[in-house]
């Protein structure tokens, strides 16, 4: 037969269960803005076994069963790749959009310098003995050389900026990888303690895994022990259960000294082509930016070769054989030519050394002979540097536009999945307020039960 003490005891247990429900709702509300947090729900259970009274089962109230997270595992399995792709394309698009040196409307850019060089030669061809025009032509050649330097330097600066971001990302990724390995260990320990699911540790791991997916494109793979291992493109393991690998950013000679990545995992070091933000950064640097640098170098090399070949066939104002108009410093091939190109010091010092006169039948023309200037002008059609510059610009633009389109598409997919996850796991203040109300009402009712039971005690004790 149930007694009043049992009613008081079950009432106290039920009050505790409702308090847990209120606390969970409060916890949810307090984490409403916490990134990676998945709302939690208490699962109240009827206290078993019920008490048998006569032929009937009399219930013994409620108690706290479990506190579980609201997660959609199918959805969350798609998120790491979406995070990695979105971060990668966004990083690449951001890097390429920040490069302004190839903007077609930018004043003082290389296209203006190239046009200025040929315009100065055109002016010079009309009166090659004019000292002002000779000085202007030398000045235009110098401006062109400087413009090659500046354009290449701007592109290289962008690549150096990528190197710095890669180094910072690598530091963050290494910290996160170690954190995930550590959390795997803590989660194992918590589960072994039999205290149910360590939801907040799971949230922290999920948050670290999400960020690692963004940084490196790492894909999480759950293990049978409940750990999460992380694998990079090509199957390299960044985290294996409780062991974290280590990424290193090192200068890569194949990329002109710009950084490349290595992964050391399980004592083995391998070169790495990552995904995610790191992949996007390296793809922009080693792709479109490098192509633009290489294109400029090749253009500078070919232009110098073509112009020098013609210039050296001519004769200067004093009857000397033409010198090389452009020097290329230490460059022995196209590589770094845009950085090394300069106007010959002898011509800078004495514009009379500009070889404007042609040689016909072994006899040089007079001071007003512009046949070698006209030959120099012909390089604008034989080499067509404007078309090559145009190609460099449009190729770069195509890469930037493609990266931008990819970034939009990837961001759209990521946002869609994030919205679905927020729908499944996010906290709703309305819901939590209702949960709080539910817990409060139940708590009040149970408290009333205790009050009534107490009154019943009093009644019983007053029997004489």
């Amino acid at each position: 037969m149930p007694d009043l003490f049992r009613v008081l005891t079950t009432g106290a247990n039920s009050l505790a269960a409702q308090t847990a429900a209120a606390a969970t709702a409060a916890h949810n509300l307090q984490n409403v803005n916490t990134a990676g947090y998945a709302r939690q729900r208490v699962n109240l259970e009827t206290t078993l076994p019920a008490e048998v009274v006569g032929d009937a089962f009399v219930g013994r109230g409620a108690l706290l069963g479990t506190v579980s997270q609201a997660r959609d595992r199918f959805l969350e399995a798609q998120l790491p790749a979406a995070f990695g792709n979105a971060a990668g394309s966004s990083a690449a698009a951001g890097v390429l959009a920040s490069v302004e040196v190839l903007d077609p409307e930018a004043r003082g850019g290389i296209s203006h310098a190239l046009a200025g060089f040929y315009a100065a030669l055109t002016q010079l061809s009309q009166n090659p003995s004019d000292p002002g025009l000779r000085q202007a032509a030398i000045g235009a050649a110098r401006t062109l050389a400087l413009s090659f330097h500046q354009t290449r330097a701007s592109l290289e600066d962008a690549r150096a900026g990528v190197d710095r971001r890669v180094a910072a990302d690598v530091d963050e990724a290494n910290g996160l990888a170690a954190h995930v390995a550590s959390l795997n260990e803590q989660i194992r320990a918590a589960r072994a303690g039999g205290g149910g699911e360590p939801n907040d540790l799971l949230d922290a791991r999920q948050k670290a895994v999400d960020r690692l997916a963004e940084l490196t494109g790492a894909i999480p793979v759950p293990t049978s022990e409940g750990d999460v291992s992380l694998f990079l493109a090509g199957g390299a393991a960044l985290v294996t259960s409780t062991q974290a690998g280590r990424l290193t950013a090192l200068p890569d000679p194949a990329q002109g000294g710009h950084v490349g990545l290595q992964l050391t995992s399980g004592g083995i070091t391998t070169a790495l082509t990552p995904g995610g933000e790191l992949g996007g950064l390296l793809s922009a640097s080693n792709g479109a930016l490098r192509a633009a640098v290489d294109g400029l170098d090749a253009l500078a090399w070919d232009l110098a070769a073509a112009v020098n070949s013609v210039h050296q066939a001519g004769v200067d104002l004093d009857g000397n054989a033409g010198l090389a108009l452009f020097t290329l410093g230490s460059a022995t091939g196209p590589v770094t030519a845009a950085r090394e190109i300069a106007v010959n010091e002898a011509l800078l010092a004495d514009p009379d050394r500009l070889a404007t006169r042609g040689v016909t039948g072994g006899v040089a023309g007079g001071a007003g002979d512009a046949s070698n200037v006209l030959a120099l002008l012909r390089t604008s059609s034989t080499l067509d540097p404007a078309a090559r510059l145009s190609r460099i610009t449009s190729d770069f633009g195509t890469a930037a536009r493609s990266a931008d389109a990819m970034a939009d598409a990837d961001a759209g997919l990521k946002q869609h999945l994030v919205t679905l996850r927020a729908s499944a796991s996010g906290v709703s203040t309305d819901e939590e307020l209702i949960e709080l109300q539910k817990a409060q009402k139940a708590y009040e009712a149970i408290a009333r039960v205790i009050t009534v039971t107490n009154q019943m005690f009093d009644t019983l004790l007053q029997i004489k």
Partner: protein
Amino acid sequence: MRVSDQMIFDRAMVDGGAARTRLDEATARASTGVRVVHPGDDPAAAGLVTAERVRMQRLEAIASAAGRASDELAAADGALSNVANALARASELAVQLGSEPYSAAERAAGAKEVQGLLASILSELNVKVGNRYVFGGTSDGSAPFDGLVLDAAGNVDAAATGVYRGDANVRKVEIAPGVYQDASVRADVALRGAGGPPAADVIATLAELANALAANDRAGAAATLGRLDRSITQLSTARGQAGAIMNALDTAVAANDAARDDAEKRIATLADADVIQAASELALAQHALEAALTATAQSFKLSLLGKL
């Protein structure tokens, strides 16, 4: 679909941010009038704009150089015109003083005038534009013709007078990318028939006229008339050549100006924003942002928080 607070705020951030980005882009297009700022805005157009800008600047330079060449030819034509006038006067003197009524003194005075005309012609032919002599071929630095030289008797030294010091080259100027045009006339051909068909030697003829008049040689003076006429014709031919070249250069200047304008229009078509479209996009973007902000504010208001 279940709606969490994160979704509401994310939507506000993402949609509001996107609307603000579109407004910023539309404002930039409307205020600058430029559609292609970065190569990524329109890669093909950016490449073409780059090439067109190079071409445009080249066309400007060609027009400028052709214009200056035309100015030089105008100076050359002016000098040849003065030479032709002097030859006409010499011809008048030859007709006049080759006749009976004139005395030796009058012919001697005529000889002095012809010597003056010769000196004047040689001075005209040594005309400079800027730093260079226009009749010296490509020898810019020194006067193309020696001056008047008299012998001890005061007669014109025909061998030493007006010796041509220039070369036989003709200057060329670019009138379109890769297209070149002669930009000078050969004064040695115009005056002495050098390198051309058999013609009169203007300077030798004038020297002969002056010396004949000084010697009171009426027949000798009259004998120069035919060559003086041919000299005038020869000068006219040279002036005609100069005029033809000037026409070609002026046409080239106009053609390059037109081509430059075309290139500028093409750049505008490729890179510039359509004003009406830009204004329309700006208005649309403003409305879109306003709607996004209003919707966001409304969604924030709807909560149990204020009602419990």
